[in-house]
């Protein structure tokens, strides 16, 4: 796809997704603090560049995209319906793709290449593998699956099983590991002992990449290379992008365990600021256009949140409680 559409167009689409995600996070945080959201709220602040890049080279209908907790920017790049669906998910709208039966970041459109994540970390990697295996068995060539995980998920047994299998089957899957240095409150040094998370990808026999996840254009070009390699039949790819979570694990968490120096260092490297600066320097975006994009994003977020809050909630008396689609006759 990047061969047809220039990197400037991809970058602008990705940046638009980042603006939407940041505006969404800002509003959602306020609504959480005002007690308007049922459960937890999980933001992607600091992850926007990696998230947007993870979806930037994918095509809905052909590819598979498996975002998880902090990939709102990637979801917005993957599809224009993401903003409304994310709002519906948090507010449990009956019209959302989960119909209020699941919520917050646990939503997907599995028939459209976007599987609905479960909370068990690492469990979706093998599901992505299966979706790509189905394409192979059905003779559908050229698709790529991107599966997003974090540093903490690299410790999960399911991750190991799936990554090994993906590599053994040479499936066109890109595993994007966003290392934000903390798995909830646990720092990298208590999470793994290898020198670098790319070592893990090498161990699986995957082609590995690492990039600075706060550097928008570097992350974008790394993802382009990884997705193109997978698309060209070079098998499994492992991308490690390092950034900092500029928020708590969820909005209930003040992240007091992250040292102040680290927070200050990353304050200078906010992916939104870096991306804007880089797009201006390249001449792909003017100051005025950037401001407009921001304003449009904020308006879109307002509208989507208002709509989702207005929509009917699911009704316990009329909702479909069946757990299986098939039921025996007479039962």
């Amino acid at each position: 796809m990047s061969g047809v559409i220039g990197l400037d167009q991809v970058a602008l689409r990705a940046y638009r997704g980042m603006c939407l995600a940041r505006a969404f996070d800002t509003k959602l945080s306020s609504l959480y603090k005002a007690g308007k959201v049922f459960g937890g709220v999980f933001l992607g602040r600091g992850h926007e560049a990696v998230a947007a890049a993870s979806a930037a080279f994918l095509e809905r209908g052909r590819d598979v995209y498996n975002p998880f907790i902090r990939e709102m920017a990637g979801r917005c790049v993957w599809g224009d319906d993401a903003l409304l669906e994310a709002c519906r998910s948090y507010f449990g709208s009956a019209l959302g793709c989960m119909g209020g039966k699941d919520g917050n970041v646990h939503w997907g459109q599995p028939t459209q290449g976007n599987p609905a994540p479960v909370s068990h970390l690492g469990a979706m990697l093998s599901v992505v593998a299966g979706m790509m295996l189905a394409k192979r068995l059905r003779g559908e060539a050229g698709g790529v699956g991107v599966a997003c995980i974090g540093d903490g998920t690299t410790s999960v047994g399911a991750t190991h099983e799936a990554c090994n299998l993906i590599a053994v089957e040479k499936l066109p899957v890109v595993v994007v590991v966003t290392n934000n240095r903390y798995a909830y409150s646990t720092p990298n040094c208590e999470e793994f002992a290898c020198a670098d998370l790319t070592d893990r990808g090498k161990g699986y026999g995957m082609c590995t990449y690492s990039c600075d996840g706060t550097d928008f254009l570097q992350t974008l070009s790394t993802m382009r290379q990884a997705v193109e390699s997978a698309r060209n039949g070079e098998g499994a790819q492992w991308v490690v992008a390092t950034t900092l979570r500029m928020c708590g694990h969820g909005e209930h968490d003040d992240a007091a365990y992250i040292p102040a120096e680290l927070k200050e260092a990353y304050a200078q490297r906010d992916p939104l600021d870096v991306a804007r600066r880089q797009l201006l320097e390249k001449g792909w975006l003017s100051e005025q256009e950037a401001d407009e994009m921001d304003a449009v994003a904020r308006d879109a977020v307002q509208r989507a949140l208002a709509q989702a809050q207005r929509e009917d909630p699911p009704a316990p008396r009329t909702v479909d409680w069946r757990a299986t689609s098939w039921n025996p006759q007479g039962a």
Partner: protein
Amino acid sequence: MSVTYIDAIHRAMEDLLAEDELVFLYGEDIAGSFGGAFKATKGLAEKYPGRVMNAPISEDAILGVGIGAALGGMHPILEMQFADFGTLALNQMGNNAGAHYFRTGVPVNLTLRMPCGGTPGGGPFHSQSVEALFAHYPGLHVLTPATVGDAYDMLKQAVQIPDPVVFMEHKYLYRRVKAESFTNPDPLPVGRARIAREGEHATIIAFSAMVPEALEAAQLLAEQSGYEPEVVDLRSVKPLDTDTILASVARTGRLLVVSEDFPWGGVAAEVVARVAAEGLHLLDAPPLRLTSKESPIPYHPELWKAHRPSAATIAQATRYLISL
């Protein structure tokens, strides 16, 4: 011609591969000329190249691949080498596949084959009956065939059911249960229990390898004591055919439920709970359960025989039930 229970399973998969191009088989050691730890897939990889695939030793990922492949439109049949290792896939099956239809409205059409149950010398980790663990999760169907005909028909029906199905195939029955033919002239649908033997003095509910034990017990009782117990083969533990169970209890007034599983919270407990809740007035005596012991499954054949229900202990329990 005499065919076995495992022949029926092999034949069902062979026919499914021939009839449904979306079917593929995935599991440990099932491909190549090896054809599986129990030879259930022997020769199928050669006959259907690319559709019988070996997986790494990764039970969780095997299930995940099955879920993804089903979402991609395929009809995967997955194999756990032993049902005991199904616990390693329980998260994917229960939390991911099982929850999927309710959460998204999209069913996950996968079949999970699990060679289950005890055999002499199997020991604690190659003998378990884990149907209750899987049946506990909403969203799964759990089939437990006891005959050659059911092994064939129900595996084929499992793939036609659009939801995740656990197919519990009992290793003790693999080569011990034989029939003249695979085919039932009039196969029952999944969800219907079968009256395996008609009787009047007590109802013995059994499934899987406990069905032949219960039938032998009934024969013993008839010969030795003149009692005629009715034996009901559940065929599937989920769906559970409460109607057939209650109808039988209404005829006999006495209930014994036999299960090879551990006692705590198992299928036997579920059946007793349902009969107590819906048919207490039908009972002339307290309902009884006969299960394996509340201890891990032992290795030595003499210990193993004493650990699980047998024709002799089922007959003994039935005599006691009738005496109440």
